Each structure stands twice: as C-alpha cells, then as structure tokens.
C-alpha cells in the first residue's frame, strides 16, 4: 500500500517511515509542508496520506486545512490525520469533508502499532478511524439523546464511533455478533437514525448527529 507521510518533525517523520516500511507499506513520499503534500499526492497518487495537524509556517492547523483541501481536490482520498492533542471541532470538520476514508488519531496511538496499522488499513479501505479520546469527549458530553441509551449501548456506540466493525466490537465486549447487531439496531432506533450496514456511514451519522445536538 502506497503511503505519503506529511510531518515536519524529522524525528517523527523518520519514525513513521521506519514503522510503515517495516510493516509492509510503501512510503512513496515523506514531506514537511502543505504545498509539498498537495504536490506529492498529485505526482505519487498514494492510497492514503498520513498528515500531521501542525505544519509550518505558523504551526497552527495548516495540516488539517491541507487535508481538507486535498479531499476537495481529490475526492475520496483517504487521509489519516495525526495530532498531538485531539479536538472535536477538527474531528467534525474531517467527518464533514466527505463520505468516510478519514481518520483522526492522537499521535500517541502510533505506539500501539497493531491498532495504528489497523486504523490505517481501515481508512485506506474507505472506513473511518476516530481516536477513542474524541469519541469519549462526544459520549461524555452529556447530551440528552444519549441519556436514553443503556450503558452497554453506550459502549457499543463508542466503539462504533471509533470506526470498529461488528466483529471487533463483539470481540472487545466479549459478546456474540448477533448481540452487537441487536444493540446497534436499538441505538439507531433510539437516536432516530436509519440503519445502514456501511461502516463509515454509521460513524458519519453518529458524529453528525452528536455534533448537530450542540445547536
């Protein structure tokens, strides 16, 4: 799988390159600025881009903006955004930038190599990967619609919002897949969402719904 890495910190850039190339990925470009990023996608046509939120020149949210621009220019381009901290506003903007194929993870997660690579593959395949911290911020924000969910349903929703598939959820919660489907059906009906089977669309639906709740 062809990956473009966008990270201005040389240490982290090297670390990510090392991690990905030793895990069977092909790092086609490793760049440090937003402009180089857009040029690299154009030339190398990667399967996925891994982008740091803070890039020069101002080290604010250039990386996020570049990722959003890239997804406008190349619709459907899978982008995994890494950040030193998580901010729900950014997660909402990414989710709103298209149908799936986005990920937003805390940089710390990279050290859990298997989970990180799993998230990367999921996003490249058009799915979604949300950092558990973002999801936790959403779920614990205490919105009224979520009060209707049972604790178990909340757990399922949290894992669902991370972008996990039903099999993974079943394994994590040590229940059968049928039980998970039943919980998900209940969640959709309690939150007035039309049920679909597509991994990223349900996350989109959940996140959009939760963000819309803030009015």
């Amino acid at each position, binding site marked *: 799988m062809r990956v473009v890495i966008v990270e201005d910190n040389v240490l982290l850039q090297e670390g990510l390159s090392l991690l990905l190339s030793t895990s069977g990925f092909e790092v086609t470009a490793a760049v440090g600025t937003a402009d180089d990023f857009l040029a690299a996608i154009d030339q190398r046509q990667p399967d996925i881009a891994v982008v740091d939120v803070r890039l020069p020149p101002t*080290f604010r949210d250039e990386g996020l903006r570049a990722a959003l621009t890239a997804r406008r220019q190349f619709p459907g381009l899978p982008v995994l955004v890494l950040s030193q901290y998580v901010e729900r506003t950014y997660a909402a903007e990414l989710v709103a930038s298209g149908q799936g194929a986005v990920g937003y993870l805390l940089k710390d997660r990279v050290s859990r190599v298997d989970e990180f690579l799993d998230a990367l593959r999921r996003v490249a395949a058009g799915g979604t990967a949300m950092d558990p911290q973002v999801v936790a*911020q959403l779920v614990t924000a*205490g919105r009224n619609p979520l009060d209707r969910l049972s604790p178990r349903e909340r757990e399922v929703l949290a894992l669902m919002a991370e972008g996990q598939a039903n099999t993974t959820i079943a394994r994590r919660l040590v229940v059968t897949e049928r039980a998970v489907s039943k919980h998900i059906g209940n969640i959709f009906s309690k939150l007035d969402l039309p049920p679909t089977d597509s991994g990223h669309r349900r996350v989109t639906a959940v996140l959009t719904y939760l963000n819309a709740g803030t009015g």
Partner: protein
Amino acid sequence: MRTATRAIRYLLGGGPTAIAALLALLAVATSAVLSLVGIGIPLLSWALSGVRSLAGAEQRRATRLLGPANSGRQPFDPVGSGREPSDPVGFERRWAPDRDRTGRPRLGMVLRDPGTCRDLLWLALHGTTGLPAAACCLALGLFAVAGLVTPLVWWIPPAEAPMTFVVPITDWPRALTLAPLVAIVSLAALRWAVPVAGVAVARAYHALLTPSVRSRLSARVAELTATRAGALDAHAAELRRIERDLHDGAQARLVAIAIQLAVAQRQRDAAPQIADQLVEKARAGVEDALAELHEVVRSVYPPILADRGLPGAIHALAAACPVPLTARIAPLDRLPAAVETAAYFVIAEALTNIAKHSAASRAGLWLTHENDRLVVRITDNGVGGADESRGTGLAGIRRRAAALDGYADVSSPPSGPTELRVELPCAS
C-alpha cells in the same frame, strides 16, 4: 442675572438635601454604634452606600452650577483609569468587584475606600450648614418682598399694633425710606453676594468630594501595586504547579521507563519473556507520560487557542457545552496571549459552572472589544444563587481577571438569571 437665579436655586435646593444629610448622619451614627454589637454591620454598609449616592447627587448639583469649564477640573480623567463620566467619584467601578449576593458593597471595601472619609466630612459640613444657608436665602427673598410691599400697606394695621420692619413703621418717611432700603439691600445681596456664596459652597463641596489628582494617582498606584502583587503570586503559583506536575508526573514516569528498558536490555538473552513484559510496560508508561504532558500543555496554553485564535477556541468550547449556547463574538484583532488565555479559561470555567450547577436550558455568551477592554458577558436562565464561597470556580475567574488588572462581576439572585461580566484591559 441667570447666575443669581441658578445660585439661589442651588442654595435653596441645599435645604432638603441638608435635611437628608442630617438623617443620613443619624443613620450612619446609629448603625456605627450598632456595629459594635454586630447587628449594625450590614446597616452601616447600607447607610454608607446611601451617603455615597447622596454625595454623588450633590456633586452633580454642584457641577451643574459651576459648569464643566468652571469646575476647576478638566472633564477628562487625568489618571486614565477608565472611569465613566456618569461616575465622577469612581465609586461604582472601584466597588464593583466586591459586592455581596444582594449587590451591596461589602463593608470592608466601603471602609477602605478613601472616598468614604470625604463623604462623611461632606455629610457633616452639609448637614450643619446647608439648612442655615437655604434659610438665609429664603429670608433675603422674604425681606425683599416685604420691603417692597410695606410702603403700600403700612397704614392698614391699627396704630396701637403697627407693622414692624426693624423698627415700628408709624409714618410715611419711615415707610418710604427704611422698608425700601431693606428691600434694596436684600435684592443686592441676592444679586451679588448669594451667587458668590453659592459658587463658593459648590466649589468647596466639589473640592471635598472629588478625589484630587494626587490622591487618585496614589489610589491607582495602590491598586496597581496590589494587582501586580496578585499577578506575581498567581504567576508564581502557576509556575510551581507546572513544575510539580512535570516533576511528579511525566518526569518520574520517564525515569521509570528508562529503568524498565535498561532491565529489559539486560534480560533480553537470559529471560526474553520478562524483557518483553518490561518493554510492554515501558510503552504503556510512555503513553501515560504523554497524556500527562498533554494535560500540562493544555493548562498552560490551550492548543486550540494557538491554532484558531480566541473566536475559534470559544466556538470549540461552545460546541462542547451541554447547555445550548448562543455565542456572539465581535470581530477581534489578535490580542495579547495573556488576555486571550485568561478569557479562554474564564469562559471555560463559566461554561463548566453552567453545565454543573445552573440547571439552565439556555445560555448566552457575548464577547466584545470596547475601549481597549475585552468584555466577556455570559448569562444563563438557570436557578441562580451562585455562591462564591462554595467553590473555587468564581474565585478563580476573579483571580485571573485581577491578575490582568481587570475585574469580574457576578450577579446571581436566588431564582436567577445569572450573569457574569468580565472585563480585561488589553492595551499593550
């Protein structure tokens, strides 16, 4: 002539206010005595507040007579402390940060205010002289009228009870000279002497009630010294907190990780399983250390503030607030980082309070930049009755505002609504 009329009106008007002053003097004295046994303390603060508004009204009356050009002072504030023109004594502004729940200034603050002493001096002066002055004015008027009328009517009363005007008026010569003379003298006094006296009284009151430039400057210096000391204390406490968080948290964890890795290295060949476990432990430790570092960074300067500026950061806060919040943010230039950070934490704290305690169904946030002051106003329709003594939230907000020489004002009557207003000066 108009000056005379205005001076007469001023001195006559001093009569009723002198009576009010006497009553106030009585109230202050009574509550001061009662304060010795405790129950008068709220009364005293209430009475002194009354005196302050009485003094303010009297000062406005004096200024009306003197006219802004004649007041002997420039209308602008030479100290530049941002006091509003409607508040010449600077009372509202200076007392605003220290009110109790009913909106009444706390007694300690009232007593420390140098204006209180001036108020009391004025009260004693006006209470004793105001009424006689008004009476003199009235008497002069009556003399003038009587002096003019007497020559016409002196012959009406019977001879055994003649009209008396200084001396009994019993014949025409007396009636035509003495009475008009008194009238002329009275009128002359009203025309020339009363305006001089009125202006003198007004000047005296004005001088007494308006803090001198010098005393205002020294009050301002005292205020700045206090806020600077507060700011330094807050800063020092903040540095200690950060140092402690890093020292006891991330730093200690990193040491532990280094040890685990070193042991793992030594055990690699002898006991690969133990080495594996240690490496796994070390990795988990790194995650914890990072999480702690995130917290520290967030508490020093929120990353979203660095990324998106104050408006973006507030929108993020608003989105995370469980109570539906309407935020109106005026266009802002980039402000000093200290002001932005303080505003951010003040808003974050206020929204947390609303979410936790207010039981509100709606909240509003206004952010404007007026006269080089950042003004934050946050309201909610909740239960009110916010009590500063119960938590650290409101005190923290005050401390943050005071450290920047700003102020925070909370109004939260028992059944709501609650309104928090914070002003932060942002001149560089």
